[in-house]
């Protein structure tokens, strides 16, 4: 069964560009990040526009962890440790992450987790 033909695979597509139809969910909006601004201010406009969606994502990540560790203690410890971890991150990333946390109103530990998720996830 494992070696059987993939039932969902399809023939190579042709002339699918420019994208349209049910697979196309829209264009990514464009933002300018001004590197002349202090790191803590660079992301303010973008985060102001996306903070609701960002909060939804961090809440879901917290929910998934809570599902694995229902007492909530692990999540609490992790968030506390990740808040401390932010102080060790190099310039300008620490300042930018702190700026994002401030602009979004999301706890710093959760923004740090979002930013180091790749390192956590690669096992």
């Amino acid at each position, binding site marked *: 069964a494992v070696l059987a033909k993939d039932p*969902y695979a*399809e023939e190579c597509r042709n002339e699918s560009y420019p994208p349209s139809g049910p697979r196309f969910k829209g264009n990514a909006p464009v933002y300018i990040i001004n590197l002349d601004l202090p790191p803590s201010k660079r992301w303010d406009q973008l985060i102001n526009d996306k903070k609701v969606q960002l909060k939804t*994502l961090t809440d879901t990540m917290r929910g998934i962890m809570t599902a694995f560790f229902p007492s909530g203690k692990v999540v609490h410890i992790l968030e506390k440790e990740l808040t401390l971890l932010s102080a060790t991150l190099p310039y300008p990333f620490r300042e930018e992450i702190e700026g994002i946390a401030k602009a979004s109103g999301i706890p710093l530990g959760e923004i740090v987790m979002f*930013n*180091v998720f790749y390192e956590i996830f690669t096992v």
Partner: protein
Amino acid sequence: CTSIVAEDKTGKLYHARNLDFGLFLGWDVKNSSWTITEELRPLTVSLDFQRNNKTVFKSSNFAGYVGMVSGMKPGIFSLTMNERFSIDGGYIGIFQWILGKRDGMWMGFLTRAVLENSTSYEDAKDQLTKTKLLAPAYFILGGNRTGQGCVITRSRLSTLDIWNINTNGGPWYVLETNYDHWEDPFVLDDRRTPARRCMDRITPENISLPTIFDVLTTKPVLNKLTVSTTLISVTDSRIETYLLGCPDPCNPW
């Protein structure tokens, strides 16, 4: 993820990627989709990083994430990163960082630093090859002239392999999913074979960003984890990001 760098018959380079993320992070039974994947889509943005009102580099990113996973230095090079799974994974690097051993670099911060500071394809390749990391990764790098395309396979501490295009009888494209290119992919997650089959049909005579888009939107290269597709032409200073979904029937990864 699936990343491709390809060279056409005139030596022009094209770089594109599917960003797939969210495996095992919550399955929405009602909508038959991965929760995190769906929530990342509205956070996907195209960014133009400027200094003195001039573009330094451009990227496709998630709002709230300060590192880079896809980007381009106009006219110079393009870079994407694919996840590489390993037992010697990022959690070891994080523990070492917490314990004070901080000679490695966070993946997203390295790619951001390369896009911001590197001045050539060779310089970027050098940085991505030699810098110690906290987690393993695949770096897919494209340049602005013939032969400038490669996949750099990284462990945390060293470079395991550099796979170049079009030099010494090499291929006209490199294609990376999430497995070492010299080994077979996991049998339940083989996006490489269908992607290669589509690329081989296109040939260097017909390769372009639209034809690569055809490859990346063919199932199962496109799958339930796909958040977006990014198309890059360094020569034309062009980067486009499209949000994509995979309607049923569709592979979960």
